[in-house]
């Protein structure tokens, strides 16, 4: 955790314990993964790496990730019962400990999700301290988003014009961009774009992008 620039960073957040990185951060990873899936999950295979694998059980990291998938926030007292609630809701969860190698942050979770409409996603995210997180891979493509902002995500075929189109739509709606990044598998292959914004985008603006991208997601901040 760095310099606090608010009173409520040193007296706060209000959260479910025991750990901001292993519990509150894990909830946020689950929340953002659930938002990217954007339909109720029916199956989740969750890989835990590093400290998440070694101390996750005692920190309730497993329960926190599933609570987030169910849409609970970091201060929701249902977190400790989330595994039971998931079962009741028909969400099948499996946990696996994994060694992704030294290149990965010690607090890494990789979620393989299947939604009730058949959508599949693979999301890898890290918990970087103080409850802050970063999604680092989406379906194997490198990405960077924090969940602190309104976020537009697209997965599209790498071709000229998409980035311009997205920024035009964002500008037209008078929305300010906080961060933006685009990466691709290879030239002409699949590309992923994540744009973090200070204000929300209207639904019809998001719909416009669905014409040019295979997958479009607009996500609310999870903080």
């Amino acid at each position, binding site marked *: 955790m760095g310099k606090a620039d608010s*009173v*409520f960073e040193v007296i706060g957040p209000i959260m479910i314990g*025991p750990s901001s990185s292993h519990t509150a951060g894990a909830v946020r990873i689950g929340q953002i993964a659930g938002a990217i899936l954007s339909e109720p999950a029916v199956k989740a295979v969750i890989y835990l790496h590093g400290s998440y694998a070694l*101390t996750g059980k005692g920190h309730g990291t497993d329960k926190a990730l599933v609570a987030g998938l169910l849409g609970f926030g970091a201060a929701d007292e249902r977190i400790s019962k989330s595994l039971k609630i998931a079962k009741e809701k028909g969400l099948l969860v499996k946990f696996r400990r994994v060694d992704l190698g030294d290149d990965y942050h010690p607090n890494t979770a990789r979620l393989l999700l299947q939604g009730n409409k058949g959508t599949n996603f693979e999301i890898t995210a890290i918990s970087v301290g103080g409850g802050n997180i970063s999604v680092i891979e989406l379906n194997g493509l490198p990405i960077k988003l924090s969940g602190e902002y309104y976020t537009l995500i697209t997965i599209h075929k790498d071709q000229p014009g998409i980035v311009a189109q997205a920024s035009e739509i964002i500008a037209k709606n008078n929305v300010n961009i906080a961060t933006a990044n685009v990466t691709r598998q290879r030239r002409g292959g699949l590309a992923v774009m994540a744009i973090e914004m200070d204000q929300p985008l209207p639904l019809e603006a998001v719909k416009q992008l669905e014409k040019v991208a295979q997958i479009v997601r607009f996500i609310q901040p999870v903080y």
Partner: protein
Amino acid sequence: MNYRNLRDLIRLAEKRGEKIGEIVIAVEAEQKDMTSEKVREEMVTVWRVMQASIRRGLAEENRSVSGLSGGDAKLVAKTKPSFLSRRILKAVAMALGVAEVNAAMGKIVACPTAGSCGIVPAALTEAANRLKLSEEDVILALFTAAGIGIVCSINASISGAEGGCQAECGVAAAMAAGALTELAGGTPKQVGHAAALCLSNMLGLVCDPVAGLVEVPCILRNAGALMQALLAAELALAGVESRIPVDEVIGAMDEIGKALPESLRETAQGGLANTPTGQKLNRDLPLD
């Protein structure tokens, strides 16, 4: 208006004839473009959660998932003290209780972190009961505590992984010591001395959690830190001054934190975590 260290805060408070907490509220309101009223209201929400965590901490055993903690707060609360006053022992039980609630996946307020969440709520509840304070007084004192915490985060750290336990329980204790001093009628200078005396007594404390969990020794360190806060406030109110100015003590904490080996910064590789029993507790933990 802004502040980067406690000298700034103390000067501003003296110049304006206000309490440190009032300066902290004004700066927060200005920077977040909110009214002071709104900032206070947000802290009322925080205080209510703190109080609820104390109630749960005293009422239940709060066993953790790992089985390493729970039950000590209740045990202490029902014990007739041999050395401490009844009230102080009750405050100790509160600090333990909140920390146990945290370990048992209950709702708490990180203050400044989840691992050190019991110290400020216990100190302020004791002060509120003892001095018959209004909720308004306590809210103001929480801002005083926050000002001290912010200054520590700017000039040192409030993360065990960066600065050891001194940065978590140590800073929490300094926050509590300052708030207690202000509540008992201390001047802004005395608030600074209380924070300095308190932190001086907690310098060097390492972060060595058994099995990497926020339980052993974290929960009991909340009790120890509370006692340091009460002691420092008492000393400062008596007129004892820290020979080293508070901002220099915070600087020393930063230097010490940076000098700590990684094994003693929340990695569970050294200290109590690395004792034969600490290692055994780690091995015996349920993984699935």
